[in-house]
């Protein structure tokens, strides 16, 4: 049984949540608790499969899984002359790393929403769409096929939009869902046009094969620009970040936590296109600088828009945009020096590792912050900072989790945010000092705005109208506890986490040759 799970891990990683999502509405019609138990079971099994997949990938290198072949590794049929025919998953260290973080946050969100959604209607649809959102993220993260990436991008957008529009009674959430679905679909269509351009030139949809044949003609440049635009839009990078504040603030808080991971899957898609599909064949210096500029813009505009916000979740949404800027900065610096071995060894590698480490850190502490915001919303019924106060007396645990999240996002030493930000500061400083200084200023502004939020929400006298309700129920605390423990754990042992998880992931992205060799079985045409 165990080796069956390990041999078929990528297929099970997708099939389990899909099967769970298809059965949830059917079970929901008969018994409420049966459906809840089913969803928790499915999300736990997905977590187990994701860890098994990560274990296999980290021990034996890239896992190539072909759908429909007689045996998983038969990516290239013998008589096809070195051309991948079927869809194949090329799960390397980076993909497994993202799948692992997505499944952890997914499991925490399922536990959290057991009680945060209990009194609301339409729970069948809610849980099925949550599982489908997970399917979208896993698909985008593991696939080695461009059209497959588009299909899972669509599942991601539709499931996310439907969940953002969950609270239909006020109409504002539906408008946010409409804006999110509209922009994501337009981005998806542009991505598909780029895939069409690449298909017309190379007659293949496999990332590794196209990368081995890439001649970077003019249509390829257009395809690159369109892909960067579509995937940056999905990740909420500044010029196209209009949907992020609305979608994150109007969605139920448990959904916002998983939406952060969904937009990071978009960011992962961007890195996969930049490093594995194009890599050194494009002039990586200019593209690297474009990514750096996008990162700086995201950082700066995200924080400056966050300071004046009154709504706690909209403030955190803008911080999510600014934190995405950090990841882009780290990876952009590495991209800018991709071909230059000496600079890469000096700071490119650490910049990349800092950027990737920041992805999982951000998923953890931003998810934690949104879950605490949800707990506060459940307790007070409002998200307006001016109407809250003195919650510290009655919500001890939520206050503790909020402190952990706020200090982590501001990059205070004992927490995970500091570890990845330090790596980014060091390497970016060696690249060009001004960028690093901007990054530090933004980090200080982040701390300032979160101190303001902490003061507005938890300090001050006990408010009379929040008298009755005590602490939030235990499943919500369990969800938050999972993320808090990981945030602290990654903060205390950063070096071990970097060596085990992050360095192989960074290597997997950086050397494109290994990726192509592992998929095409060394037969580079």
């Amino acid at each position, binding site marked *: 049984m165990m080796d069956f799970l390990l041999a*078929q891990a990528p*297929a*099970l990683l*997708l*099939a389990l949540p*899909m*099967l769970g999502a*298809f*059965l949830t*509405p*059917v079970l929901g*019609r008969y018994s409420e608790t049966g459906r809840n138990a089913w969803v928790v079971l499915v999300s736990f099994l997905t977590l187990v499969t994701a860890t098994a997949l990560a274990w296999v990938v980290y021990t034996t290198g890239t896992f190539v*899984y*072909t*759908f*429909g*072949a*007689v*045996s*998983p590794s038969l990516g290239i049929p013998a008589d096809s002359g070195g051309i991948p025919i079927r869809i194949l998953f090329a799960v390397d260290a980076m993909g497994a790393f993202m799948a692992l973080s997505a499944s952890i946050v997914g499991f925490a969100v399922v536990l959290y929403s057991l009680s945060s959604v209990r009194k609301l209607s339409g729970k069948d649809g809610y849980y099925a769409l949550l599982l489908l959102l997970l399917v979208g993220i896993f698909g985008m993260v593991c696939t080695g096929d461009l059209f497959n990436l588009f299909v899972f991008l669509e599942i991601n957008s539709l499931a996310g939009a439907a969940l953002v529009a969950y609270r239909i009674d006020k109409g504002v959430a539906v408008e946010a869902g409409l804006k999110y679905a509209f922009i994501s679909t337009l981005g998806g269509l542009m991505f598909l046009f780029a895939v069409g351009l690449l298909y017309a030139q190379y007659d293949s949809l496999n990332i590794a094969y196209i990368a081995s044949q890439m001649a970077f003609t003019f249509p390829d440049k257009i395809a690159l620009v369109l892909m960067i635009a579509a995937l940056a839009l999905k990740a909420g990078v500044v010029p196209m970040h209009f949907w992020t504040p609305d979608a994150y603030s109007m969605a139920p808080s448990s959904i916002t936590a998983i939406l952060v991971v969904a937009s990071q899957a978009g960011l992962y898609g961007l890195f996969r296109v930049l490093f594995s599909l194009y890599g050194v064949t494009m002039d990586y210096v200019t593209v690297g600088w474009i990514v750096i500029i996008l990162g700086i813009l995201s950082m700066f505009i995200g924080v400056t828009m966050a300071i004046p916000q009154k709504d706690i979740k909209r403030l955190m949404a803008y911080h999510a945009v600014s934190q995405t800027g950090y990841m882009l900065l780290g990876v952009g610096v590495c991209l800018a020096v991709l071909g230059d071995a000496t600079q890469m060894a000096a700071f490119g590698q650490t910049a990349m590792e800092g950027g990737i480490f920041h992805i999982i850190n951000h998923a953890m502490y931003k998810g934690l912050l949104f879950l605490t915001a949800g707990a506060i919303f459940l307790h007070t019924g409002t998200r307006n900072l001016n109407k809250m106060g003195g919650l510290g007396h009655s919500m001890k645990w939520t206050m503790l989790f909020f402190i952990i999240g706020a200090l982590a996002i501001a990059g205070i030493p004992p927490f995970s945010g500091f570890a990845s930000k330090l790596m980014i500061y060091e390497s970016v400083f060696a690249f060009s000092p001004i960028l690093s200084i901007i990054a530090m200023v933004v980090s200080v502004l982040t701390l300032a705005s979160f101190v303001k939020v902490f003061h507005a929400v938890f300090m001050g006298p006990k408010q009379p109208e929040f008298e009755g309700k005590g602490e939030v129920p235990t499943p919500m605390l369990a969800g938050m506890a999972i993320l808090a423990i990981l945030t602290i754990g990654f903060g205390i042992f950063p070096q071990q986490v970097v060596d085990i998880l992050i360095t192989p992931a960074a290597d997997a992205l950086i050397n494109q040759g290994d990726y192509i060799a592992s998929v095409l079985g060394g037969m580079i045409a």
Partner: protein
Amino acid sequence: MNMSKIVRAAAHLLFPAILVYGFYIVVHGHLTPGGGFQGGAVIATGFVLLYVAFSYQRLQEWFRLDAFKNAEALGLLLFIVTALVALGLGATFFYNWMANTGGLFGTPVPFGPNPGYLNTAGTIPIMNIAVGVEVLGAMSVILFYMLRGIKGGDE
């Protein structure tokens, strides 16, 4: 406003024809142009025809919404189970474990033009039927929900 007698009689006559034509497209998906999605969409137009010819209330009397939801869930489950069976047999997800095995839908097909025999193409006809039922259910559920949304139904 409701349609005249002629339109309703025509609808009564046309609906079975649409059903037969739709299932023809679904079942012959691997032989002639068409397949699960196209056939399912054709059958869904049959329900739209009934809605146009008769009123929304009459449509609700004839078909329960749950029936379409069950059809959709059944189609999807048949589709993913057919693919998962390949995992059980030791091959990979979506392996065509029924092709060229001589059993149901298993007759091997030589290369080149042939008049097209129904009993071929392994799991493809099963998946065609599964997707046909799923698309039929999905389109009708969307139709029912949007009609309920527009008409304010019994909110």
